[in-house]
């Protein structure tokens, strides 16, 4: 696809008057500034708007990554774009100073539901309940939707035409995945033939649920303790 977007006049992209090293430096700083200023991951196309045609964005990113070596934050590729993130090992320090993240903390039960959606999307609430061996409440789904982690996808051809849920770009970005293929152990699930749902038959649901728990390293009783009481209501 030809990059036809060329802002008229105000921003000099090609920087013909600068010597090559200074030009590269300017491009690099522009890219860094844009990524720094953006709350969301910045895509390659967006970054291509502030550098010359001859400039490879990937190389610029590599240089930025090199420069940040030894700093407590890094530039990472998430959700189809680039973003600055603090390095994981400073998590404890940040939490000690600022407390947890401002968004509602994921409960363990909701995290399990979210993982179920991530691995087996599109999946309905009823199917999730069957997989997890636990009623998945509407509130739990609403909470995950409120956090922007999941969204309604296709409807399921079952009575009532319930929505099947899919994960969003926000989910990828929040957990630092570039794509769904970065989910932990997804290869294991592939090899076991567990991804996706064949029309009928296939593995029993109990087997699937066991497998899912095994892969995610979650022991069954651990989860049960943590389930909110709303199920009983």
């Amino acid at each position: 696809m030809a990059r036809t977007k060329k802002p008229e006049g105000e921003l000099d992209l090609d920087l013909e008057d600068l010597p090559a090293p200074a030009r590269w430096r300017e491009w690099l700083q522009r890219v860094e500034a844009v990524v720094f200023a953006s709350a969301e991951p910045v895509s390659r196309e967006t970054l291509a708007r502030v550098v010359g045609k001859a400039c490879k964005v990937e190389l610029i990113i590599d240089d930025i990554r090199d420069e940040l070596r030894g700093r407590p934050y890094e530039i990472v590729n998430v959700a189809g774009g680039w973003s600055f993130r603090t390095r994981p090992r400073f998590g404890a320090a940040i939490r000690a100073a600022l407390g947890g993240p401002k968004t509602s903390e994921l409960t363990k039960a909701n995290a399990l539901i979210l993982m179920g959606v991530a691995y087996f999307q599109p999946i309905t609430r009823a199917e999730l309940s069957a997989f997890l061996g636990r009623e998945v409440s509407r509130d739990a789904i609403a909470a995950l939707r409120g956090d922007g982690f999941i969204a309604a996808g296709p409807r399921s051809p079952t009575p009532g035409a319930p929505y099947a849920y899919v994960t969003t770009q926000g989910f990828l970005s929040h957990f630092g995945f570039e794509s769904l293929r970065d989910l932990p152990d997804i290869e294991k699930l592939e090899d076991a033939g567990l991804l996706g749902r064949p029309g009928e038959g296939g593995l029993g649901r109990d087997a699937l649920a066991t497998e899912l728990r095994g892969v995610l390293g979650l022991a069954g009783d651990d989860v049960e303790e943590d389930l909110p009481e709303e199920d009983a209501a």
Partner: protein
Amino acid sequence: MLARADSPAIQSPPAPSPAPFPAWARTKLTPETQAEAAFLAGAALARLDLLIRENPPWAGAFRRRLALAAAVASVARAGRSEDDAVLRDAFHLTRPGVDPGPAGRHLLAWRALTSSSAGQWRAAIAVAAETLQAPMDAALQTAIDAAEACRTGPRLAPFAAARAYHLARRALAPAEGRAGEGEGLAAFLADAVLAQKLGWPIASPLLAEPLFSQARRRMALDVDEGAETSRILFAYAQAAEKACDLAADLGRRAQKLSEASPKLRAKGAAAALNALLDDDSVSATTKIPGLSERGARRLLERLVSLGALRELTGRTTFRLYGL
């Protein structure tokens, strides 16, 4: 009784049923040399070329069904187990603009190839990459440039497509998080190149299905180009043969549909028949001009009871109809 004025008239009288696919060109054994593979590919593609140039009224359904087969193959290649029924559901039960899930996205991507003229392949690959959430990055740009070079280069059609696949596959391989999509996009580009080399008005998804079913797991990247070319030539031979068989089947079914059309008295019947000939499957909620949802459902059910149409899901609700 005379047919009503607005009763659908299927355009031309049906063409005399085409001669069957020649038995000598069928791909029974894996060829041992590249020349054999090339011969089979040439014979089968020539046959398919005739068919496509005729531009039968059911060409839309033909291409969409090939797209479905390609999507099933690339979904399987990505390590998932959705079959064609699940993909059809994902497509029909998702509102436009809503994410149909990882498997449904493959179908949308392949349909993009068949939704515009073959010359619009750059736009189609951009749509496909976006649908599959593969970024339009330098690697993909390299793959597209390689396809462009093959398209304008001097190689003969299936060889140009094989070269395009070879280059695109390597360009897309190293990127992380792409293992499943890289091969699919490479096959997509190869089909686009083939269609333009053969002068087809709209590309047909051919390569993915036979190529991805040859070996379950991902192909190694270090195979030499000659071996890969042979494999792709043979895949095209298989694909074109299967496509010809599919076309013969669809031709018969379209014939049955057109024979039943005088019995239809609903107002939007002509539009409904066109929709059926133009797509792999149609649901009662598919927008058909002149027909309400209830009217469409009645009409489609009537066609099924006349034996002129198939119901594809076997369900009693959320039914999908197609040739």
